């Protein structure tokens, strides 16, 4: 017997409006379908009526958590269109804020993962430590959430020595705390057992379904825009791309924790090698007719902006592909043959940001539309066969 369970658009398990329809047999999800469009804001159309400068603040408000990702992606594209070369110091500060944002986003995610796994004290502690990063961001940019640090041709705020020292001191605390979270897994068996084996996404599927970010890297594919197509100053910073090969939620957790440590190293490098000089150059008001695709590794994965200019002071077209959209197809794959109880966890593991992803898109319907009729016996055998390969890993080990 098959049931269809709708979850959302409004549901306590989901933080943002999205509609999931799952066809279940007993506790096991056989088909999953994601429907979007509950949070469409007409932002791309609005961008066509705003000047290049105004659009910085518009793209910043695509998302609260990766606000810097979207502006950097946009601003980088516009700088290419205007043939501007931002000064080194500006790029360093831009990268610094980007990495701080990655830390805050990953800590936020860790907390959410803890919460979804039923480990709420973990959630509280990671979020309290996240306040350290939020304070740094507030000190650098003036505000906690929308930093507004980017401008076309550089950044808007400079760093002074006091701030540099404050950041380096705070980094030490963060390092220690992250070290603690990293070790927690080896000694907290219930947490690891809850995450291991959930939301399996094989390497082949991850590539075929165009997963991005930590979801992709947790399936053992070392793909990172910062390494593959270095923008800003990533070409000269030593860092590693973190991967895991467990292909499950545990792997995604591990990748994010490892990335935290890479972020600390990157920030330390940036601050110790901060070049002197101006932070921005003057930008023209118009851009020559041209088009550009700008890529950026947001905390959730690859963010793509396509910008087309037509010689005026406004873009002709701005298209945003947020990382969450790239992960939807993979999420459907992960949900299939999993348990209903794992839905929030799997869904949280891609770190979804619905309002980022809601663009004018036509989503390909993933359902086959076919309903097969099979006998109860065959069904039982099928479920046995599937669940045989999918038992919870009781003896799961913390891979760090």
């Amino acid at each position, binding site marked *: 017997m098959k049931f269809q369970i709708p979850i959302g658009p409004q549901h306590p398990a989901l933080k943002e409006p999205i509609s999931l329809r799952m066809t279940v047999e007993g506790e096991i999800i056989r088909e999953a379908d994601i429907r979007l469009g509950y949070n469409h804001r007409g932002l791309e159309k609005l961008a066509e009526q705003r000047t290049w400068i105004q659009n910085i603040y518009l793209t910043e408000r695509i998302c609260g958590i990766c606000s810097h990702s979207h502006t950097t992606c946009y601003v980088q594209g516009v700088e290419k269109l205007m043939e501007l070369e931002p000064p080194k110091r500006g790029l360093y500060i831009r990268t610094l804020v980007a990495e701080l944002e990655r830390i805050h986003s990953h800590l936020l995610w860790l907390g959410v993962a803890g919460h979804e796994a039923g480990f709420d004290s973990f959630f509280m*502690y990671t979020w309290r430590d996240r306040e350290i990063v939020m304070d740094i961001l507030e000190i650098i940019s*003036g505000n906690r959430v929308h930093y507004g640090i980017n401008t076309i041709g550089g950044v808007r705020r400079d760093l002074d020595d006091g701030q540099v020292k404050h950041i380096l001191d705070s980094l030490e605390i963060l390092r220690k705390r992250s070290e603690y979270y990293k070790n927690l897994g080896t000694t907290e068996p219930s947490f690891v057992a809850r995450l291991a084996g959930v939301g399996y996404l094989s390497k082949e599927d991850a590539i075929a379904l165009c997963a991005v970010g930590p979801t992709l890297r947790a399936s053992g594919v070392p793909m990172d825009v910062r390494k593959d197509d270095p923008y800003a100053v990533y070409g000269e910073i030593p860092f590693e791309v973190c991967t895991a090969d467990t292909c499950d939620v545990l792997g995604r957790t591990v990748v994010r924790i490892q990335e935290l440590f890479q972020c600390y190293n990157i920030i330390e490098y940036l601050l110790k090698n901060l070049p002197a000089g101006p932070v921005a150059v003057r930008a023209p*008001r118009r851009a020559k007719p041209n088009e550009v695709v700008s890529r950026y590794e947001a905390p959730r994965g690859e963010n793509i902006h396509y910008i087309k200019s037509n010689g005026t002071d406004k873009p002709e077209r701005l298209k945003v592909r947020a990382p969450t959209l790239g992960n939807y197809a993979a999420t459907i794959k992960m949900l299939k043959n999993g348990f209903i109880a794992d839905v929030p966890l799997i869904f949280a593991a891609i770190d979804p940001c619905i309002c980022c992803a809601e663009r004018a898109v036509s989503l390909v319907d993933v359902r086959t539309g076919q309903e097969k009729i099979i006998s109860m016996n065959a069904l039982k055998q099928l479920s046995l066969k599937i669940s045989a390969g999918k038992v919870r890993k009781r003896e799961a080990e913390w891979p760090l």
Partner: protein
Amino acid sequence: MKIGVFIPELLRHLFKKPATVDYPFKKLEVPRDFRGSPYLRPELCIVCRACERDCPAEAIEITAVNEAEKRFRMIIHNDRCIHCAQCVDSCPTEAMLMDDKFEISDYDRHNLKMNWEFVRAVVKPKSEPKTS
């Protein structure tokens, strides 16, 4: 692996200061670069309209009261303002500045409007409008 490793951490936190402050009684200081609400110093405004043009929320409105006397009125619709401080960046004479208030909510959005009526200033711009 052992059970209950989290307990020492939990106990430690019993003796820690809370991470929050008693907000209405105690207030945190805002950072130096905090972006509050924009305000105008009319004695410096040369009515170049750079702020009006660059404001992403279209929150600034400059109208001429009397062209002959060079009297202008500027209204900042603080209810629409997104506190980005682009107007401050765009202003060539530093006539526009941000304050550091953060408790600015009101029961009526029209109370948030601020307006100034002033005679256009004659000051030499310190910088070109940064975004022209």
